[in-house]
């Protein structure tokens, strides 16, 4: 049996206290223990960005972080972006710009974009391409993604 440890973390605004296996990553715990499968698994070595979540507002590859390391943290996943069933501006912009094609990388893209806009409400295209360079998209909808972030940022200034 895996050694277990109790952790407490805030996930999408809700405080949760539960036992996790000490060898499980935050990605595994989010997907397999909590059932939040919006965060995606691809490379599991921090190279593709599909599993990006925000830890205390900072984008992290959840495959590289043990769940016990997130003890006490504030975790935001893609499921936490919409409020009361309403899409946030960034999600809406992704839809309008056609940024989501197959969609598999999109949760990670959204989380990196969300973090970028939190720290830089009016990014340039270069800022966006730099901030999202760790989020691979094989549909290669990069231009639609950056257009969505730009339009969302402009909206933020209204």
């Amino acid at each position: 049996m895996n050694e277990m440890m109790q952790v407490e973390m805030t996930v999408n605004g809700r405080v949760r206290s539960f036992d996790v296996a000490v060898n499980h990553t935050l990605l595994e715990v989010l997907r397999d223990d909590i059932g939040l499968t919006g965060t995606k698994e691809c490379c599991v070595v921090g190279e593709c960005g599909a599993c990006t979540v925000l830890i205390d507002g900072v984008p992290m590859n959840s495959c590289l972080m043990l769940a016990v390391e997130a003890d006490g943290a504030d975790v935001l996943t893609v499921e936490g972006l919409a409020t009361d069933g309403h899409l946030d501006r960034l999600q809406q912009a992704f839809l309008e710009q056609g940024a989501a094609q197959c969609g598999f990388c999109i949760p990670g893209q959204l989380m990196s974009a969300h973090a970028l806009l939190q720290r830089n409400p009016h990014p340039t295209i270069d800022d966006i391409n730099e901030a999202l360079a760790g989020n691979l998209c094989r549909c290669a909808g990069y231009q639609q993604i950056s257009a969505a972030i730009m339009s969302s940022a402009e909206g933020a200034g209204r």
Partner: protein
Amino acid sequence: MKVDNIGAPAQRLGGIDRVTGHQRYVADLPIADTLHAKLVALDCAHARILSIDTSVAEKVPGVVFVMTADDLPTPMPRFGPQYQDRPVIAEGTTNYHGEPVAAVVAETKDAAEEAATLVKVEFEELPAIFTVEAALDPAAELIQDPSIRRPGPFTETNILTEYHFGWGDVDAMDADMVVEHTYAWPMQTHFAIEPHGYIAAPDGDGIIVWSSIQHPYQLQKTVATVLGMPLSKVRVIAPDPGGGFGGKQHPKLEPLVAFMAMRAGRPVRLILSLEEAFQGVRRAGTEVKVRMGLKSDGTLVFQDYVNRFLIGAYGDTGDRISAKASFLSAGPYRTPAVRIVSQAILSHTTPTHPYRGFGIPQVTWARESCLDEAAIALGIDRLEIRLHNLVRYGEEHVPGDTPADGDWAQTVRKAAEEIHWGTPLPPGQGRGIAIGVKSGPTTGLSYATVRFLADASVMVFSGTSDMGQGARTIFAQIAAEELGVSLDRVAVVMGDTAVVPYDQQTSASRSSVLMGNAVLDACRDIQRKIRAMAARLHDVEEAEITVDRGVVHLPDAELPIVDVLKAGLGRMGGEVVGNGEARKEAFPDHPLGGTALFFEFNCTACDVAVDPETGEVTILRHVTVGDVGLALNPVQVTGQDEGAAIMGIGHALMEHLILDDKGRTRNLGAIDYRIPTSLDLPGELHSFSIENADGPGPYGIKGISEGSLLCTAPAVAGAVRDATGAVVRRLPLSPENVWRAMKEKT
């Protein structure tokens, strides 16, 4: 209500789930009581298996069993889309790096992973064959035992198939100049961000298989065959794949997972790691030798090809890729004599799988690069030599095949105009242009069912897979248009063989055309029934009524179709069901078994800068123009077109599977393999569509999802040569390869 859905930038059906994290891919499905599987493979390309000891692995708490070839029926069930040569699991030997020899089934993922490291395999590594040269050596080991080959002249060689295509007499042609070169394209992998995933579960006296597959009906047939079940007992559920690019077309590990689930009597799930996905599917590496004969004015007089496709250890689709791509080697150019020899060559490597472009990028790389060399040698402009030889609308470029189905010169001129062809560039920069053409499907069969419900909402049932190309949205737009309802009242159901009617496959950019026509046909079936309703309700002859795009035209009135539906159904309610079918018939005498349903035609042009110190290529401006017939959904067309262009840039500049001296793949991972990121985009990327509504699909559409990667590599290489004088004939155009070519030049 008249609606106008055609040409509208309708938002993607399924888009909301994709931006909220609620879209469920295979790995996200919550299926109770599921066991977890982990594969065991050897770290070598080719080996004789001496023994497999599972005893230690089976003692790991939670392990249910370890499956090896000994646990499967005798003879080993084999399967494949063209050749039934791929074993469910390796038996006796392994024939490519990563081929599974055993699989652990356990209560938890942790237990399965731990036990997989404890399966002891004794094996003898054997010399592997992984180059064209080694495979064709008369002394080479036979990669496939002749007993699993179809009898033929090549059974005792490593050539799986060889084709001869062409017309005219190349040897009799009188050319002013002959250019001859060989162009190499490396093996590449698809790298869908969703690794392949499979789940199987016994279901009464049948089975359910969930898979990220592109062709659910082909999987149904494969599983039914290996398990000896009727099709009706095999239910395939195929959630939208997280990217396919051809890599998820055909069954691979589903038969193994099905056998494990039957043995366990419980659901079994196998989600591949990215490394396993890399080892599961790849594109054929090719060596294409071209001889081109021209008149001094640039007129092509012959083209002569020897195309060698290095496919893998099992046939998969390697034969079809080599044949279909080679058939169009000579491209869209009027050429009096053409000779093509095409070989699919077996090797101890991952079986070649379809990959966006289906072999056309490889032959196009050779043809367009060679044409550039000819133009430069003759002192003719590279754009002009293409326009000079390009077939006109309706003219055959391959005798006996479908003639040019578009004004292709219009596409080429548009690309030239948008790249400002003929205007000067600063020193160190260069410009390139190339043309790609690919046959759409040569056969096809799609059925669709459309249900017009009592509240005038619509359900479309289709066996197409929506892997990002946006097929759902397209079908919804067609149904909304034909039945006069708003798009938000249309649901599209896909990916369940127990629910949706048969579709041959999702490939070759066929779905908007073939399945689109089936959906249109189903809507027309509903319109006929509505017409009969209207005749009954209004006491008018049916012949006096027409139904068109949501409107019922009576002799003295026009009614919205929904009014007739509601009145016709009456108090009992119910629904009107339409069935549709679209076929592309085979032509047995055609070398490919059928003519092209349509062509994807693209012209790509770009400006590059090359770092003289490092050989690094920067694409400053990239223009892609496709003849799409009609952009039914312009946002989706742009997304697919730009996406294919960027993928093509990856293939041109960076992507290649690297094998070591024993045939093992050394770059099994995102960073080591390298695909384009947001930092690898061209300075400017512009996608344009030529729309003359002249395609065979609904409203004149053609397939579009592959066009803009067909000729990317020769356009970029042409620009690199224009900038530096350096000629690269072996992809990728990596800094190292470009730097070496620059040094060789001086």
